[in-house]
């Protein structure tokens, strides 16, 4: 039997005015696990308790089979943590900083130097590692933050919003790196994000919490199946002055249920693979230009709401559009 990486049982944390965690019971296996939750859902509190930095009001938590309440020190020696916020002093070089952090995790000086060189190379930081970090781009800073969490070769890393503030390319690279942490380095990962789609791409398993409670915990595959949607956008033509409406009618005739957003996008459920073909055929038949056809992006909020017109807001901020033009 595989030992759970993280296990909580009825975990509750009450502060004088708020309840951050409310009877949370989760069981996380080795691999990459996505932890999804809006701000204030209890993600940070959970991490704090897991590392043994705050006592739980009720319930128990264990990390790598160790009790968080009693064995915090041992847990922290075997776990890496990458915070969401900036945590790098600007007037120190990446090498100097990561070596120091390795020593703080108990690595002897020479080993710390070797591990630092290795780790910085693995996260993709080369010559710039000798320069003060104040001049780094966001992408480089995120890499250093990741390196300091990996430098002591932990068994588990906790990554808090690692893609925050990155551009689409940086985001892709970071997600690839996270995937490699498990596949190549053999380290289990718990990664938090409020963007469900990102986690779909990297995680084996997804846990959704809200208001300190467990909302869902399932494998990524089943998650995607349950929530996949398609966004379609078409041009107008002389024959169809309102292309969007025409397509909706055609799709409705083919038995596909759709919703239109103010941005003229049509959203529909991907019930099975044939939906793509139905859309393509409908567009061709009407002689419209297909501007966009992409898998819908889910933000955490979508999991909570019933899908409907409200989704429009979530689409507005989309960053990685796979645009299809005529």
């Amino acid at each position, binding site marked *: 039997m595989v030992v759970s990486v993280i296990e909580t049982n009825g975990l509750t944390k009450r502060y004088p005015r708020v309840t951050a965690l409310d009877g949370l019971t989760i069981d996380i296996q080795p691999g990459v696990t996505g932890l999804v939750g809006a701000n204030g859902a209890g993600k940070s509190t959970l991490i*704090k308790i897991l*590392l043994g*930095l705050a006592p739980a009001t009720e319930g128990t938590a264990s990390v790598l089979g160790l009790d968080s309440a009693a064995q915090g020190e041992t847990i922290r020696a075997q776990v890496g*943590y990458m*915070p969401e916020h900036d945590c790098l002093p600007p007037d*120190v070089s990446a090498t100097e900083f990561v070596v120091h952090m390795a020593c703080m995790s108990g690595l002897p000086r020479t080993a710390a130097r070797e591990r630092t060189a290795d780790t910085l190379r693995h996260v993709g930081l080369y010559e710039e590692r000798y320069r003060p970090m104040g001049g780094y781009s966001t992408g480089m800073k995120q890499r250093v933050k990741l390196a300091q969490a990996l430098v002591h070769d932990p068994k588990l890393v906790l990554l808090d919003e690692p893609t925050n503030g990155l551009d689409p390319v940086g985001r892709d690279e970071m997600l690839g790196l996270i995937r490699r942490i498990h596949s190549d380095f*053999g380290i289990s990962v718990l990664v938090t994000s409020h963007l469900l789609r990102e986690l779909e791409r990297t995680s084996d398993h997804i846990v959704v919490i809200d208001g300190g409670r467990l909302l869902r915990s399932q494998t990524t595959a089943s998650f995607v199946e349950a929530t996949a949607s398609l966004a379609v956008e078409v041009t107008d033509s002389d024959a169809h002055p309102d292309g969007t409406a025409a397509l909706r009618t055609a799709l409705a005739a083919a038995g596909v249920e759709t919703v239109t957003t103010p941005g003229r996008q049509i959203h529909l459920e991907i019930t099975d693979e044939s939906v793509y073909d139905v859309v393509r055929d409908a567009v061709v038949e009407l002689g419209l230009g297909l501007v966009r056809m992409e898998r819908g992006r889910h933000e955490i909020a979508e999991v909570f709401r019933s899908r409907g017109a409200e989704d429009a807001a979530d689409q507005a901020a989309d960053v990685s559009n796979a645009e299809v033009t005529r």
Partner: protein
Amino acid sequence: MSTGTDARIHNIGYRNYTGERLGISYARRALFTHSLRGSFGLGRSARSKVLPMGLFAIMMAPAVVMVAIAAFVGLDELPIEYTSYALFMQPIVGLYVALAAPQMVSLDLRFKVTPLYFSRPIERRDYVVAKYAALCCAIFLFVALPLVLAYVGGLLADLGFAEQTRGFAQGMALSVLFALLHAALALWVASLTPRRGFGVAAVIGVLTIPYFAVTALQAVAYEQGSENAVGWIGLFSPGSLIDGIQSSFLDGRSGYPYEQTPTDGAGFALLAMAILVTVVCYLLLGRRYRKAGL
């Protein structure tokens, strides 16, 4: 075709670390060393080195001059006593303390490095201990190294071994007390703000404003004919505490107005006050970090 050489680039992939992992006391030492080096700008950018190193050079200058004069002119004692050196150079020492303390804690708060420390095995009290020890050590080095130079120079200039050694030992004792008191006070003040500038200003304020007030009051008290009150008034600033202690217990010349030495009772009160301030500030510092988290 092969060129016949075996030179190739291998991607050796990720290697797990199987070497030894040292415990908390090692991590605490690592933090101590890192902080101590940082307080002199070592391991940081060139710009961070300018001020501490510059101040240190100024601090050393009188000792160098003193030794040179003693050697060439042939004095029979050094112009500045060992116990008065830090007090004579108080503005420079104060400035250094005001720079070093925020450097040690405000930067960690401002750039949020503390969560990285606390996500590692060390506890919050280990962090406080390491930082306090590092600042004590930094201030001690800053204050005591000129004395070492003066002592060595004094011996080479044949100023009399017994007398010099006695004065040097007293100077060292005062330096320890000076470092313990100032480190606790300055570190606590600096830990209250993540802004380094505020930290510097606050520490300078805490060190100088009470000192000027105390000195003024002491002068007034003396003029009014109550000489005995002078020592008691000295209780209320770190600088006058140290001054009173060195003149009461370490044969130093008093820096109080009109070179008034505190009475015996006031002397003990000054020592007790110095210890009390050190302990209270240290406890407050610990309290400041008790709830620090991620």
